[in-house]
């Protein structure tokens, strides 16, 4: 009775990707990023991508891989520190960058998936983010009008998924993966564990399978840590 979304790996998962597409990538920093799909996109060689992602990876990992190969024309992000190659391309003008507030980024993704073409938010009022945007007061407070994002693909990563595309995330690796899964015209989920339908608790699924078009078990997850902060044992 449940629909089967399983594809046999990242190559099949990215089928249909084309030059100049708008593409979303889940993750926050390197946490919860779709590692296997990113590697497949690098290997595919598609060019001119506009990438919507909270961050831009680091040198040699995450979206940093696609920056190295110059497959990215434009980044739409909220925070892009920690990446020398990114900074070089941006300052030299090779890479277009659109920086937007993190909450607006998340809400624009959700809105795209939820059929809300535009909404008002106070974030960014009075700053350069508001330039050229409609301003309106609600309850005496100025807000700006922000629009939903379009994206041909959304690549997300979950801990567990079932064959119908239902997803469960792990801790803060959830982050942008849910809202972007909602937003993608084709949403591709890579998971650490792929289970048959019926194994997940229907009350505890984070992203319903209706938002997911393709799913596969990632072969390897490096899950690199960006800032290893620990307490010493006594």
């Amino acid at each position, binding site marked *: 009775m449940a629909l089967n979304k399983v594809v046999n790996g990242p190559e099949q998962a990215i089928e249909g990707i084309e030059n100049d597409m708008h593409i979303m990538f889940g993750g926050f920093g390197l946490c919860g990023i779709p590692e296997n799909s990113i590697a497949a996109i690098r290997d595919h060689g598609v060019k001119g991508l506009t990438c919507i992602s909270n961050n831009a990876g680091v040198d040699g990992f995450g979206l940093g891989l696609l920056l190295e190969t110059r497959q990215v024309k434009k980044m739409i992000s909220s925070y892009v520190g920690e990446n020398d190659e990114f900074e070089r391309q941006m300052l030299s003008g090779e890479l277009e960058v659109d920086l937007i507030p993190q909450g607006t980024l998340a809400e624009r993704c959700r809105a795209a998936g939820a059929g809300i073409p535009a909404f008002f938010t106070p974030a960014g009022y009075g700053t350069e983010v508001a330039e050229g945007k409609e301003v309106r007061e609600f309850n005496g407070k100025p807000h700006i009008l922000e629009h939903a994002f379009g994206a041909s693909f959304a690549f997300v990563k979950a801990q567990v998924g079932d064959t119908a595309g239902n997803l469960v995330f792990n801790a803060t690796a959830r982050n942008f993966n*849910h809202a972007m899964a909602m937003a993608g015209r084709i949403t591709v989920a890579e998971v650490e564990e792929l289970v048959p339908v019926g194994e997940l608790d229907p009350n505890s699924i984070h992203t319903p399978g209706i938002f997911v078009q393709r799913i596969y078990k990632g072969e390897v997850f490096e899950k690199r*840590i960006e800032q290893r*902060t620990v307490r010493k044992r006594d």
Partner: protein
Amino acid sequence: MALDKNGIAQRIAQELQDGFYVNLGIGIPTLVANFIPQGIEVEFQSENGMLGMGSFPMEGEEDANLINAGKQTITALPGAVFFDSSTSFAMIRGQHVDLTVLGAMEVSDQGDIANWKIPGRMVKGMGGAMDLVASAKNIIVAMMHTNKAGESKLLSKCSLPLTGVACVTRVVTNLAVLDITPQGFKLLERAPGVSVEDIQAATEGRLIIDGDVPEMTL
């Protein structure tokens, strides 16, 4: 004697009230978690998707799936909750967070704040800061009173691109505690051993000194 970063954090921790949900920015604000007053319970929100953030993990127990907004490995306390980014900013934009503490490059005497961009030199992005400052009811800025060149960071007008306008409620620096009022920065407290004149010299924006200004107690 001017405060160090821990001193600033310690002073800000006095602003915590029992039952507060608190969002701490990167840098000095993070240190506030080390000085929670006794008898008070607060819960920390991390905008990448959790409530109930705890301390750093013990060596060897770090988890790549569990980080804070500064991408540092952390732990979850009992009662913690994980959620997605759109829900996280629903909390922030919807004013469910009681107190926001963040760093700044500049603050103006009207409560404007600049902390995300130095044109031509540094553009890391605003992250969640613009959402936080646009919505929070209660925003404390934690920063040094002057920059590395010795110039005041408390200005009559910010020179850098803004993060938000008329949003900061209080500033705690290494020299002083000041509130934003319609008349400008109102000096509330001096760091131990720091004189009103020292603060005046380090403050470019309008400074209101109303009667005796007490020293902080830490």
